[in-house]
């Protein structure tokens, strides 16, 4: 099915509000779900492309996504509306939680649940990465190898992103020119 961009600023605002509202454990899985699966604003490949650009740019990744797609569809107004929609509810909730948590931080049960939810959030990131990698597994083995190399050097080699990003981007660019990724 062809993706259709939002028709009004309201639709854009509500979409991003619904991403922010539900984004327990990370925004990225929800951004994918709302924009690609529920509202079909973007095709899966478009999403991967916008996200890739936004991860390369400094700043919050999904915040950047909201600015880039908001601008694409409605110009400056769209960028502002999408970003505010994304941030509005989480901001209220994080302050509310901080106030509440101050009272319950010493409760081991509360700590355990927060830890479990946090770990699950990490798992959702990994699941999202797997979804993005799936179309490449058979056709682009070099892409998979490079993704795993980035993961290994950052997570286990503990190399700085400032080192890995330029090197990996250069290698990937060379591979892309030979049509390997």
């Amino acid at each position, binding site marked *: 099915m062809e993706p259709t961009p939002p028709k009004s600023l309201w639709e854009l605002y509500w979409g991003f509000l619904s991403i922010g509202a539900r984004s327990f454990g990370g925004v990225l899985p929800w951004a994918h779900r709302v924009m690609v699966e529920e509202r079909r604003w973007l095709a899966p490949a478009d999403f991967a492309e916008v996200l890739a650009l936004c991860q390369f740019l400094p700043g919050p990744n999904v915040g950047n996504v909201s600015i880039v797609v908001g601008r694409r569809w409605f110009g400056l107004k769209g960028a502002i509306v999408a970003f505010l929609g994304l941030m509005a509810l989480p901001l209220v909730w994080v302050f509310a939680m901080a106030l509440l948590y101050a009272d319950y931080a010493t409760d081991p049960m509360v700590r*355990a649940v927060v830890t479990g939810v946090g770990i699950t*959030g990490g798992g959702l990131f990994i699941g999202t990465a797997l979804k993005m990698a799936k179309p490449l597994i058979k056709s682009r083995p070099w892409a998979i190898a490079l993704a795993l190399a980035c993961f290994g050097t950052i997570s286990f080699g503990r190399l700085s992103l400032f080192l890995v990003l330029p090197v990996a981007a250069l290698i990937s660019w060379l591979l*892309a020119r030979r049509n390997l990724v």
Partner: protein
Amino acid sequence: MLQIALYFALLSLVSVGGMPSVMPEMQRIVVDVEHWLTAPEFTQLFALAQAAPGPNVLVTALVGWKVAGIPGGLLALSAFCLPAGALAYTIGQLWDRFRDAEWRKTFQRALVPVTIGFVLSGGYLLGTPHGLEWRSVLIMAASAAILFAAKVNPLWILAGGGVLGALFF
């Protein structure tokens, strides 16, 4: 308060890959240099921003809030988001203008594997707060597998993770 805004605005422009990449530097400024917070306070704020819904940049709002109340929180968050946001706006414009250019298509394909690697790393960082041990790995692997294989609402997966956390930790 202006000082915190200035620091965060600078951090904003180097936060390639998002929050995790500048966390160590932010901790150094907030805890070691300026003594606005203690190290455990900082860690707790980060865990909270992580568990709360929303982008984890919200930790900047929590840090600002601890230093200078709610206005401090809003200022710190804006300072962290605006410079990078303006950059994203401009680059996004160029990106769309060169939609059909050959170099852009090459660049675009080149970014995908790197992005997948970074998302994996971010997930691994969030999923192993106590290092690589079986409880974390079990919860992390199960939630990743369910999200990947089944069309289930992620909120249910998170709720399940909360229950497992209560049982395991």
